[in-house]
């Protein structure tokens, strides 16, 4: 910002104030931006400030002298009031219920201090570093608990988290999602718990996945470039290949797909949705390629609907995604 002259800032402010004008000269604005990298940076700085003020408007209004109302605290990244939605997930699926119980009962075995719970709101991801230097990033609208110890247990109650684990033979990280445990000794991977669907994608190294109730079934190994999707109601798992670069692509605010089955895409976006999403069998065979922008999650279905022949039907608080152009 130091290199940005006041002239550039003035011009950027003048252009920015006109973007809603009916006779805005977009080509002139484009030419001005293209002429000098400094113009771009000046415009970044003005547009960012304007957006910041717009988003903070209610908190700012409360502090302005003209407003004599009681001071309202600026809103920090508080835990969102998600209790009712979370409860729905818990009663709706055995997997999520089991995850909820894990929070309560498993934690004392692992850490003297118990589990610490983290929840993210619809708009922000969150980065945490564990004691051994392993990194965890939590996606929007997720709930994760961390219990420490030589075998740290991370419970993903809902949502998604990605992990970069330091290699340490004496220490195995366990991520518990629904009825399943993902064990890792040094790798980079992502776990999505969307209630009915659980998915593990590995960018580097490999992890093992198994139901945490020892039912005798052998663990599945998921290697770099693979993704395992488990239907938690039937226990059926499906393995497919993914691009390592797309693992935890939500970190950048976007979801990338290349010929992905619609149910899988919907499993991903359902964790950003306010109502449960169900893919009707008529649409289950559709495939999607492209990029979805997460934003606050409210536009994801629209983006999907824009490119796929699907329509939405709401019934009993559930959004059904059906193939368009079919009778019934």
């Amino acid at each position: 910002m130091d290199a940005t002259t006041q002239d550039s800032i003035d011009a950027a402010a003048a252009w920015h104030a006109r973007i809603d004008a009916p006779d805005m000269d977009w080509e002139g604005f484009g030419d001005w931006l293209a002429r000098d990298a400094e113009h771009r940076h000046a415009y970044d700085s003005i547009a960012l400030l304007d957006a910041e003020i717009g988003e903070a408007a209610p908190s700012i209004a409360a502090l302005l002298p003209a407003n004599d109302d009681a001071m309202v605290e600026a809103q920090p990244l508080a835990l969102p009031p998600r209790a009712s939605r979370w409860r729905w997930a818990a009663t709706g699926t055995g997997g999520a219920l089991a995850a909820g119980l894990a929070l309560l009962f498993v934690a004392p075995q692992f850490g003297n201090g118990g589990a610490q719970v983290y929840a993210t709101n619809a708009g922000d991801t969150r980065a945490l570093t564990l004691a051994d230097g392993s990194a965890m990033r939590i996606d929007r609208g997720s709930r994760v608990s961390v219990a420490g110890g030589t075998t740290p247990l991370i419970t993903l109650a809902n949502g998604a988290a990605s992990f970069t684990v330091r290699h340490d033979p004496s220490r195995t990280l366990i991520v518990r999602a629904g009825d399943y445990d993902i064990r890792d000794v040094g790798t980079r991977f992502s776990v999505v718990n969307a209630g009915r669907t659980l998915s593990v994608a590995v960018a580097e190294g490999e992890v093992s996945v198994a139901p945490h109730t020892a039912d005798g079934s052998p663990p599945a190994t998921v290697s770099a470039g693979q993704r395992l999707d488990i239907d938690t109601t039937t226990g059926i798992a499906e393995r497919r290949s993914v691009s390592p670069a797309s693992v935890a692509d939500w970190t950048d605010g976007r979801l990338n797909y290349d010929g992905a089955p619609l149910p899988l895409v919907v499993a991903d976006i359902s964790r950003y949705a306010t109502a449960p999403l169900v893919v009707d069998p008529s649409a289950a065979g559709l495939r999607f390629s492209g990029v979805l922008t997460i934003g606050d999650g409210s536009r994801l279905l629209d983006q999907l609907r824009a490119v796929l022949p699907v329509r939405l039907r709401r019934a009993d608080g559930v959004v059904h995604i059906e193939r368009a152009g079919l009778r019934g």
Partner: protein
Amino acid sequence: MLAAHRPQLVRFFTGRTGSAAEAEDVVQEIWLRTAEPAGGPIANPLAYLHRIGLNIVLDRVRATGRRARRDTGYAESMTTIMGDEAVDDTPSAFDAVAGRQRIAQLATALAGPPEGAMRVFRRHKIDGLSHAEVAAEFGITRSAVEKHIAVALRHLRKALDDRNDD
């Protein structure tokens, strides 16, 4: 709607982002977002498409800024112990306090000089009136509203930069 304007949009966003490849990405995202615009036909599609694209670019600029902030390493000083795990509690502890301070700074600057421009700006940005509504209320032209808003923006930018240089 997009096809006819595509070359112009790619040109504009090449200037906006400084990269032809990124401009293509942005235009692709515009397409994803606008295939079904809410609220019926758009009066001025070209302006609409540009504005959507500007928002997309701004989201990207912000994401890059957040990554840069994460990489500057203030996280090391924020470690807390949770049970047996040390956890870098970066966003919550830091952002809650920094966020409150920042909003107080913004409010102070918005209440400051130049008075006329800030009044117009507040009415638009804080109270949510359109340029036309502000113009009607103050009995000035739309073009005058734009000038006031530009003046307010550059004063705000300067006030906040000066403050953060302390």
